[in-house]
């Protein structure tokens, strides 16, 4: 149980509510987005499009406001698809940087939401693909994992991670390799040992799992 607490402690807490949401004269944006970004109202889309057009003209405060609101939207979008774990932090940051670098490609004649989520989806998969063992979880947790795997139990934390709807849609074998290598931070060798399969099979499964996730995200209707 100590291990679970340790890991849950490292999971990022949900973002704050941006003060700027009040300007949009409606309930907080985050509340409407608790489960899925597809619930973003049309008025938000228009407001974001206006803010982006203003940002393209060089308006700093509008841009800050837009990025602040999008941070929450992206966070909730990713959390609803991948579950609540640490790599989402990196995803949100990468997405914000990508939005900044791509801001000149937003066309006011097109809707904002598809543009935004095309970038976020791409960055999520990109971050997951690059995500390696640099974010190792605590040794304490690893110890607990080993004990649990010996007894054939799945930890609560692992269940929490898999709870993301997208990961949930993967088969068990893909879930296992993805969670162990990309989210819990085990190396390929460690994962292979835990699952009792070869290293090359782990690599193949990780590659296929990410491809399946990318396909699922592409098919995501927003």
């Amino acid at each position, binding site marked *: 149980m100590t291990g679970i607490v340790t890991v849950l402690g490292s999971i990022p807490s949900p*973002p704050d509510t941006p003060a700027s949401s009040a300007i949009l004269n409606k309930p907080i944006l985050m509340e409407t987005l608790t489960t899925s970004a597809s619930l973003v109202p049309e008025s938000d889309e228009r407001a974001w499009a206006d803010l982006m057009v203003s940002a393209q003209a060089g308006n700093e405060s509008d841009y800050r406001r837009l990025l602040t609101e999008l941070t929450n939207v992206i966070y909730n979008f990713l959390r609803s698809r991948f579950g609540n774990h640490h790599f989402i932090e990196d995803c949100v940051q990468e997405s914000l940087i990508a939005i900044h*670098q791509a801001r000149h490609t937003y066309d006011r004649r097109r809707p904002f939401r598809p543009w935004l989520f095309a970038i976020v989806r791409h960055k999520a998969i990109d971050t997951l693909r690059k995500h390696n063992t640099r974010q190792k979880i605590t040794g304490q947790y690893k110890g607990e994992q080993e004990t649990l795997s010996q007894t054939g139990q799945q930890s609560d934390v692992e269940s929490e991670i898999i709870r993301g709807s997208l990961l949930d849609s993967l088969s068990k074998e893909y879930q296992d390799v993805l969670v162990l290598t990309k989210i819990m931070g085990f190396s390929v060798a460690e994962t292979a040992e835990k699952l009792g399969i070869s290293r090359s099979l782990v690599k193949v499964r990780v590659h296929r799992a990410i491809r399946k996730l990318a396909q699922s995200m592409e098919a995501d209707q927003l």
Partner: protein
Amino acid sequence: MNERHRSLISGLSRDLEAVKPLPNLNRLGMAWFLLSAFYVAVVTHLFGPIRPGALTQLVTEPRFLLETMLGVAAILWISLLAFRSAVPAALSKQFAVTGVVLLALWLAQYVIGLFSPALTPSTLGARPHCWLETMLYAVPVILAGLYFVRRFYPLRPVRTSMSIGLAAGMLPALYMQIACMYNPVHILLFHILPGLLMIGVGAGIAAVWRPRRGRRRTKRT
């Protein structure tokens, strides 16, 4: 939102520079296509005569005209597709599928031509290095296309470059059916195949000549 995000947002929005609005992608793609087609026609004429009577055959042989027009439509569509793919969410699945269908329809004409050619096959107007010409003429077209699309934000730069390579390779390949001998086997092997190889060249150039993603970042104090 945590402190990390706050400071990132603050950094990104500080000293924000205005950016130029996105140009019309269809117009830009069309301009690239037309200029490239003009360049290919000029350079092909400069390096050798075209097949005698080829232009007349466009008027007198409806199937040959259909084959050529299908090629023009397919390449134009692929050009627009390539430019759209350089902007997030600008390329729809239907648009991409239409491009692939047009291309398949065009290439199917040559496969059908193996059994029932649009023109009587002959060696009249044969160019000795047509396959090399096809590949060489395509390279500047690819570079020009990549110069434009790199200014946008292609989420999959290599895939975008492959589309540019395909359109650029197919332009001289198509023109060779007017400039070089007409024989479906020859067209498939010495015009279309080298044109298709330019997909790899496009991908290779993109792998080396990657978009500089950091250049539009704001100055930090």
